[in-house]
């Protein structure tokens, strides 16, 4: 079974699901498309799990497939996963079924005065299309192919934001799209630059394995790095190109926000690791000081702005800005702790923030508002909802025993290794996280109830519990046993650091002493 094209299957299955659900008859209030879509998502998850069993921990690319695609441009249809890619694929495959389950009622006809929603068929179809393209992004080992699917993810994302959610969403969709397109086009410059450089050094190619052998140091490499980095920074998002984030999460449905923030935005940090560090080690080290400072600003600024929010979805969106700051910080301090912590953080953030978004969606469905100031005292009415909100929130705040704590610790330790001030600033992110999470909980769940809708409000039903409980269990599980994840992550991180380390011979770059220490 080793030659079986696992990764292509993983892309094709949800894509077929998207087409099928898209063309199913549209019955108002009907569940058929959702059930079929959920079936396809579950099948993808099973296949992803099966593919994971074929993977053996190690640094090299596995489950590879390679075919010529556009020969004149040196473009291949090449797929493969390393530890990082595998985890991201699994994260995607895990989250989508839960999103579909949690969004079951989001496309229903709204109550009087509500905003008209797109059809359920369309939501499921776009979500599955997004899943297929995201998996393609995480497995592409040809830069051109990566770019193509990277941009293609915008189309389902755009229609998910524009078609579903609250009023003002089409504006948010345009803002999202224009930001992402701008980043993508800047990256296009670098992608083409890679072609030109590879042509000058022999034959033009886009294959990651062949590009890695090129000499991409010096000024050209730095410019190409900058092009890639800007695109990924917009995607991630990082300060100062984050402003699309809060608008989007506020207007889109929580399910869409999960797909965007927990899966799609990971492409940003994934790309930094795979392309910025993988192809331009020298330029990455050159850029480290600037990137670290931007990451620190993201951590603190995101948290501070989140504290001030009155809209629960905006708040959660902005917490992600802070969390992505941690991830980027861990990546760019170049130590095994930082690298492993970051990748672990990408997984944990995916699960934790997904739970938080989905619970917030349930909350809004019951209260009919997203304003924190209009809620209050709900823990007595809906204890299960409140409990889940608390667990998901505390995970985001980095409480020991829950998964994000481990990754946050690793990143902060590595930040202190890098420089005392970096660690010091990063720590404040944790303190602020406790403030925004607990304050939000206090204002929504405790105290007197002020909402008129509280009469007859019911707690979470079985479907809703089923959509979030497994995520919370995973948070607890990985909080105590992160080793299965780290076993997959560590070989990848060591390999990447060795890559980066090769350029240390250059006298202009300060050799980080912690590098060896961390590797031992």
């Amino acid at each position, binding site marked *: 079974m080793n030659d079986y094209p696992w990764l292509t299957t993983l892309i094709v299955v949800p894509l077929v699901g998207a087409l099928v659900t898209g063309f199913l008859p549209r019955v108002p209030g009907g569940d058929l498309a959702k059930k079929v879509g959920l079936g396809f998502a579950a099948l993808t998850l099973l296949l992803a799990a099966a593919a994971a069993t074929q993977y053996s921990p190690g640094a090299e690319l596995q489950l590879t497939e390679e075919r010529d695609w556009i020969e004149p441009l040196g473009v291949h249809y090449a797929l493969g996963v390393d530890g990082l890619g595998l985890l991201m694929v699994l994260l995607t495959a895990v989250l989508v079924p839960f999103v579909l389950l949690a969004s079951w009622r989001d496309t229903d006809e709204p109550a009087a005065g509500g905003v008209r929603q797109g059809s359920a068929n369309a939501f499921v179809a776009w979500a599955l299309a997004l899943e297929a393209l995201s998996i393609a992004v995480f497995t592409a080992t040809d830069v051109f192919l990566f770019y193509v699917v990277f941009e293609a993810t915008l189309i389902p994302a755009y229609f998910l934001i524009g078609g579903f959610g609250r009023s003002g969403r089409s504006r948010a969709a345009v803002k999202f*799209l224009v930001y992402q397109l701008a980043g993508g086009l800047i990256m296009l410059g670098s992608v083409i630059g890679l072609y030109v450089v590879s042509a000058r050094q022999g034959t033009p190619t886009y294959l990651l394995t062949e590009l890695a052998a090129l000499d991409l140091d010096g000024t050209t490499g730095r410019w190409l790095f900058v092009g890639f980095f800007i695109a990924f920074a917009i995607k991630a998002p990082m300060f100062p190109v984050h402003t699309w984030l809060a608008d989007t999460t506020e207007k889109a449905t929580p399910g869409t926000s999960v797909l965007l923030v927990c899966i799609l935005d990971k492409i940003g940090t994934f790309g930094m690791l795979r392309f910025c560090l993988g192809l331009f080690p020298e330029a990455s080290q050159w850029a480290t000081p600037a990137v670290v400072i931007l990451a620190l600003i993201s951590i603190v600024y995101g948290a501070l702005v989140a504290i001030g929010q009155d809209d629960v979805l905006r708040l959660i969106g902005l917490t992600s800005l802070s969390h992505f700051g941690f991830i980027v910080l861990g990546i760019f301090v170049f130590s095994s702790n930082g690298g492993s912590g970051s990748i672990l953080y990408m997984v944990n953030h995916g699960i934790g923030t997904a739970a938080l978004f989905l619970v917030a969606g349930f909350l809004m469905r019951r209260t009919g508002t997203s304003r924190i100031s209009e809620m209050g005292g709900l823990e007595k009415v809906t204890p299960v909802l409140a409990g889940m909100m608390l667990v998901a929130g505390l995970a985001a705040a980095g409480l020991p025993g829950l998964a994000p704590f481990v990754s946050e610790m690793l990143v902060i330790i590595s930040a202190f290794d890098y420089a005392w001030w970096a660690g010091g600033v990063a720590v404040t992110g944790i303190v602020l996280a406790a403030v925004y999470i607990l304050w939000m909980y206090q204002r929504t769940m405790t105290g007197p109830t002020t909402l008129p809708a509280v009469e007859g409000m019911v707690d979470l039903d079985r479907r809703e519990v089923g959509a979030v409980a497994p995520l919370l269990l995973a948070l607890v599980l990985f909080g105590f046993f992160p080793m299965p994840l780290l076993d997959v992550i560590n070989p990848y991180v060591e390999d990447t650091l060795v890559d980066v380390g090769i350029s240390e011979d250059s006298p202009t770059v300060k050799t980080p002493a912690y590098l060896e220490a961390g590797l031992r």
Partner: protein
Amino acid sequence: MNEFVKPTIEYAELSPLLVVFAVACVGVLVEAFAPRSVRYLTQTVLAAAGLVAALAATIWVGTGLDVLETAGGDEVARGLIGAMGTIAVDGPTVFLWGLTLVFAILSVLLFAERRLEGGVSAFAGQAAALPGTDAEREASTRGLEHTEVYPLMMFAVGGMMLFPAANDLLTMFVALEVLSLPLYLLCGLARRRRLLSQEAAMKYFLLGAFSSGFFLYGVALVYGYAGSMEFADINEAVRNDVNNQGLLLTGMGLLAVGLLFKVGAAPFQSWMPDVYQGAPTPVTAFMAAGTKVAAFGALARLLYVAFGSDRWSWQPMLWIVAILTMVVGAVLALTQTDIKRLLAYSSIAHTGFLLTGVLGLQARGDLALGQITSLQAVLFYLATYGFATLGAFAVVTMVRDSAGEATALSRWAGLGKEAPVVAGVFAFFLLAMAGIPLTSGFVGKWTVFAAALSADAWPVVVVAILSSIVAAFFYVRVIVLMYFSDPVGEGPTVTNPSVLTATAVAVCAGVTLLLGVLPGPLLDLAAQAGEFIR
């Protein structure tokens, strides 16, 4: 005095050209002698059959081109210089002929559409009748239509084919006029909004004549410099003669003005929005796709073959023109409220992207084996751009209200709900023009940027990327309008077209998708076309 020498004509190699011109002449005779009732059918069939025959001849010529080699056995170019040194039938020529003919065939389908206007074509019933007079109303009630548009179009096609094949300055000038004059006329023949249409024709004619004057003056100066009209001799003179640089540079500049006017590059772009808006939409579609192909072919041949050795002189000029064109096209498109004007400005921006490819000319030795050449990039981009533009204008003919085509952008709001398929196809064309991956526009953009970047024209590429971002915004705006805005008033309607327009749209959409997913074969074909013959 020399004896008169009978010119030798390579009839076989020139057959596509001859077929098109012959059909055009027959078309004129049909107008003169056939009864009115059968003209429509005769003319459409004649034009379509003629173009298909010419396309078949082009393919036949293309497969049999002689290969020219250097002493070392490297392939330099393919083809021959025929008709006493005036016409070059080489790889790029054949590629451009094929492209022009395909676009012309699709345009004939649009020209022949009669269901959208309720049984008559999109052209004026009687062009001579003043707008708003009894004569016009009478022409309209009698269901008159001008079938002269087909021979006119065939002459324009002939000119478009001759233009990039011209191997000396005079032939190029003649081709320029042959392609332009019928277009001036066609622009003024709209059935609806006739004043706008006539104004467009007038503007196009005056400015076009003006630019022809520049071109002709340039021809004279370059002749004065080189002592010959032929590109090869001019090239020879450029290599050897270091005197009279002023004459050469002025001549080159004036020739460039004439050609840059035709492609719609800034600062010679001002006619495009008015003409694109005023002309009957099928003509706009034909003109946008065909003229661009022909004029870029001619521009590239002139610059590469005649002035190739002096590229350090013209490359900086093209840098500035390309940058200016992209910025003007993208920025002014932002404020447009009419879909045809919007597409016109988008066309200007695309001219800038094409120029980015043209200025990426490099010596053969500077390129790696198999690397994209600038000519290959330009040829490929022309194909992608032509299909997307033609398709987009074809969709414009279908969106109508009681006053004809509803070209005001505000009338397009909510089209996505009204006619999901049509809106979807149009959105797809817009995405292609914006250069989103998996559409042809992306690969096209990639190739021209790659060509420019390998020639170290990175400032141009940076501007190109920035204008692409701006351009993406206005394309997206239209998509948003169609899908996420509620219709104003009674809303737009999509009139069901006959199979003719539907076929044209389907072909354009299909090709746009195909070239986005599998561009390899066409890129190979463009690579095989090779270099211009010298």
